């Protein structure tokens, strides 16, 4: 059962798949493309973990926001070009990453934490312990 709805339609991947030949042109002429980053979703007893590939993005390039039940990630990489060289062959383009996620009800929105290592962003979403309330019957 997948609790977390992954809102793929919200962000369209405007980049072509690599290898189609236009990636070369993209990287040189259209550095402002937006890509949909690859994501793994893991779950355990008490938390969900989102693992997102955002190669080329430094700490300061990450913008992570929660609004109501929507988590939005926007990430801007450093420039992907090499100075004084021409791109002779390309399999990937460099551009911004963007993806939104719809969070399930049982997430504690105040304790969402994220860490970046080697171009991989890990977002930890803790589950709230459901508060039981006993209703007395008169």
């Amino acid at each position: 059962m997948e609790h977390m709805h992954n809102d793929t339609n919200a962000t369209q991947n405007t980049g072509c798949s690599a290898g189609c030949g236009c990636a070369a042109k993209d990287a040189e002429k259209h550095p402002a493309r937006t890509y949909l980053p690859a994501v793994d979703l893991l779950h355990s007893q008490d938390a969900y973990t989102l693992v997102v590939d955002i190669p080329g993005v430094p700490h300061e390039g990450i913008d992570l926001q929660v609004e109501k039940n929507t988590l939005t990630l926007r990430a801007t990489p450093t420039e992907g070009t090499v100075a004084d060289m021409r791109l002779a062959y390309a399999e990937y383009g460099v551009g911004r990453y963007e993806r939104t996620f719809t969070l399930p009800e049982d997430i504690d929105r105040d304790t969402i934490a994220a860490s970046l290592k080697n171009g991989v962003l890990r977002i930890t979403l803790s589950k709230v312990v459901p508060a039981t309330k006993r209703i007395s019957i008169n």
Partner: protein
Amino acid sequence: MYWNRLAAMAVNDTQKGTNHLIGRMIARQRPAGPAFNIWVNDEGAVLTSEIPGVELQDLDITVSGKSVSVKGIRKDESTEKEERYSRKERASGEFERIFRLGMEIDAAAVQARLANGVLEIRLPRSEKDKPRKITVTAD
């Protein structure tokens, strides 16, 4: 015009290890392994690749003559705790990519750098392979 392009000399990508990778890389018929870009000028070439999650110690770069081989392993995330996958889009496993460039590489001067999951390999052209200007003298 055509012979002035270095693009033609840059690539001859031989693949290995197709069966090691799972996920979108194969689904989209991409090469078996991470994507690479190749940059060139008269002084040499630079290979860049997006390899998020690959540790420095899991990379093995070999340069010989005109060939560059990049081997590596991207480990699964789910090795710790009692975590289970609900969704998996990120490819993992071993990969090897071999590129044959159109120039001799000075293997001793090769430099590689890994930053934020992006690999950059600087491959200076060997001195004897560099183009030489020939002066034409009149009679």
